[in-house]
């Protein structure tokens, strides 16, 4: 058997890269909740922005449509005035035609609430008129003033609103000075053909800011902000601007369905992220365990050298017996013994060969690369097996080994090789702590109670200082020259993997106790 204890730290490092220090921690649930809320806020902001953009475009479309309609209507007013102007110049003292045409216009265009033909000089006088009962009266002096500023055949608006609308004045000839007055209800002018845009206020203003039509008092107030549209109607006679103001509500920006979809989508996204995280963690955990297996194996192979003399002694015993049995048998044959006398000798040799085989099998399984196998194991027998292998080495170092075994013979559920390795490690550490000390003694003690079983490795060495004791199980912590500091951390992992615990206690100057707590097998 090739036994090597020349496997140095470097080789171990190559075989098994350092174990990552801590297992990957899972996110606590409050972090998931916070992440979900953050996603919700971001999603809601995006949703609101998109809805704002969408509503804005629809509003723009509606506003443009309305603007086009109203611009056409405003243009119609000029056409009416032109027609009426032509009729007013007809020689018709009774103004019958004018009245008929004006009435017809008003019937077809209800927004035109009054049409007057006015003579302004020398005395202002209404020549012909057709108007709604509710139409606001127009003061003739104002009409006269306006008409005076116009060239013949030109039309313009009165500056001030008239009732709920405005009035247009068109000058007809100089002698006598007369004018046409077309009075328009703004509310009907700006009323859309089809459905009114939702939550939208519409009004008209002129260049001076005078408002015609029903502008609500709170048109510019409120949050979320309003959408706005303002565009001139493109008419020289009616220099008006159409203004639309669209109120937005939270329910429009953040519809319940959208929010629900966000909540579900966010949760689904986080669940997917969590799954990825879980898979990655599982993968990392698997990689870490594989590394641990390799490291444990490397350390077992490394430790084999120290057990070499113990192994040799173990094998020498059955070999000695076999040799003596065989030589005795040969001698008996020389002395004339019959075949029957050979039976016990051959039986003994068979048993001894098996005993050797078992020892080799134990060594082989100890250094093999394998998955841990948890099964019921008699703890005392395991401790005795370890003691046999380490005894020769300890004797050579002048260290006594004492076993104090629980007479109850506890049976534990463990991976035997892991625990053997842990005990080898602990005994080896104790032996190193005891180097060159008089009366050096290592005690391996088993105990059991209702809760479980313990195996303790006790030495009477110099002990461990408290500040070091707290760190002995940390990876890469070592007080040994050339030590890697992986032995005890590996021991801890091996014990934890089979559901046990390992603890260290020490009194400087008196020695140390390493206790491995194991689960008992169910009876």
């Amino acid at each position, binding site marked *: 058997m090739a036994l090597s204890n020349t496997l140095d730290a470097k080789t171990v490092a190559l075989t098994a890269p350092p174990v990552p220090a801590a297992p990957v921690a899972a996110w606590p649930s409050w972090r998931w909740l916070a992440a979900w809320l953050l996603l919700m806020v971001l999603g809601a902001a995006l949703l609101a922005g998109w809805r704002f953009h969408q509503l804005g475009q629809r509003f723009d479309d509606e506003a443009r449509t309305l603007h086009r309609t109203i611009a056409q209507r405003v243009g119609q007013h000029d056409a009416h005035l032109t027609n009426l102007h032509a009729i007013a110049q007809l020689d018709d003292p009774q103004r019958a035609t004018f009245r008929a045409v004006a009435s017809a216009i008003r019937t077809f265009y209800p927004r035109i609430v009054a049409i007057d033909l006015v003579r302004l000089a020398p005395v202002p006088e209404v020549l012909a008129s057709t108007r709604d009962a509710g139409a606001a009266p127009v003061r003739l002096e104002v009409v006269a003033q306006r008409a005076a500023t116009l060239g013949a055949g030109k039309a313009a608006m009165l500056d001030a609103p008239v009732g709920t609308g405005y009035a247009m004045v068109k000058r007809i000839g100089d002698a006598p000075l007369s004018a046409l007055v077309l009075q328009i209800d703004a509310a009907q002018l700006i009323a859309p053909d089809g459905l009114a845009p939702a939550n939208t206020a519409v009004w008209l203003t002129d260049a001076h800011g005078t408002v015609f039509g029903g502008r609500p008092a709170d048109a510019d107030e409120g949050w979320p902000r309003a959408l706005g549209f303002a565009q001139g109607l493109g008419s020289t006679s009616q220099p008006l601007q159409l203004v639309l103001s669209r109120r937005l509500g939270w329910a429009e920006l953040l519809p319940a369905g959208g929010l629900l979809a966000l909540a579900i989508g966010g949760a689904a996204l986080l669940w997917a992220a969590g799954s990825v995280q879980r898979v990655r963690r599982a993968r990392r955990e698997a990689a870490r365990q594989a590394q641990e297996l390799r490291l444990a194996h490397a350390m077992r192979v490394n430790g084999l050298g120290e057990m070499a003399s113990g192994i040799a002694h173990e094998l020498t*015993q*059955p070999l*000695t017996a076999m*040799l*003596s049995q065989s030589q005795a048998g040969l001698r008996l044959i020389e*002395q004339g013994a019959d075949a029957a006398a050979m039976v016990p000798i051959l039986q003994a040799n068979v048993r001894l060969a098996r005993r050797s085989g078992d020892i080799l099998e134990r060594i082989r399984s100890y250094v093999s690369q394998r998955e841990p196998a948890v099964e019921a194991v008699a703890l005392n027998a395991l401790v005795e097996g370890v003691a046999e292998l380490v005894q*020769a080495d300890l004797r050579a170092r002048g260290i006594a080994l004492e076993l104090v075994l629980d007479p109850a013979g506890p049976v534990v559920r463990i991976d035997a090789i892991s625990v053997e390795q842990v005990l080898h490690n602990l005994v080896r550490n104790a032996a190193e702590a005891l180097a060159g000390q008089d009366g050096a003694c290592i005690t391996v003690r088993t105990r059991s109670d209702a809760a479980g079983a313990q195996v303790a490795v006790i030495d009477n060495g110099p002990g461990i200082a408290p500040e070091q004791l707290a760190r002995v199980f940390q990876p890469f912590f070592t007080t040994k020259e050339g030590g890697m500091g992986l032995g005890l951390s590996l021991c801890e992992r091996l014990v934890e993997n089979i559901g046990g615990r390992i603890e260290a206690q020490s009194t400087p100057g008196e020695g140390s106790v390493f206790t491995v707590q194991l689960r008992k097998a169910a009876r």
Partner: protein
Amino acid sequence: MTHPVFLIDDDADVREALALLLRTLGYAVQAFDGAAAFLQREPAGAQGCVVTDVRMAGLSGLQLLERLQADPQPLPVVVITGHGDVSVCRRAFRGGAVDFLTKPVDEQALLEAVQAGMARLEESTALQAQRTQASAKLEQLSAREDEILRLIADGLSTKEIARRLELSPRTVEKHRAGIAFKLGTGSVAEMVRAVLSP
């Protein structure tokens, strides 16, 4: 009379096999599973050649060797070990071991070692018998005869002894004749040897 071999090994397989081998070599074997069991053997103080393993629970083979060496008539000890390092070997021979064998033990080496042990045992037994005989003869001498024998051994003549003890030379001659009779020899040299043997 042939002495038995006392075989001490705590490994049952090894003990059984070596016992069988020693029996086929013609020895009577008493096997023990440890030094303590051997020290309590029946009858107490029985003589024989000890063949012991070194590494045993309790008293080790080397400790047993030291203990046996302290006896006035030490038993011969053959030491067997599974790992024969130099320091154990040196301790064994310094402690007076007859031979030091390493496992697995060859039949011939074992036979020779046990033969040597038995020879040593015979030798010491013969010596012991001789001593016992001599001291038994000395016991028979009277106080005066004993006194005169010691002066003879000191090389004094009959006349000188008579003068020293204020006796007549005739009386001294008479005592000398009595001593010669009791010790069974008239030779001065043999008388001296009898006195010098403890």
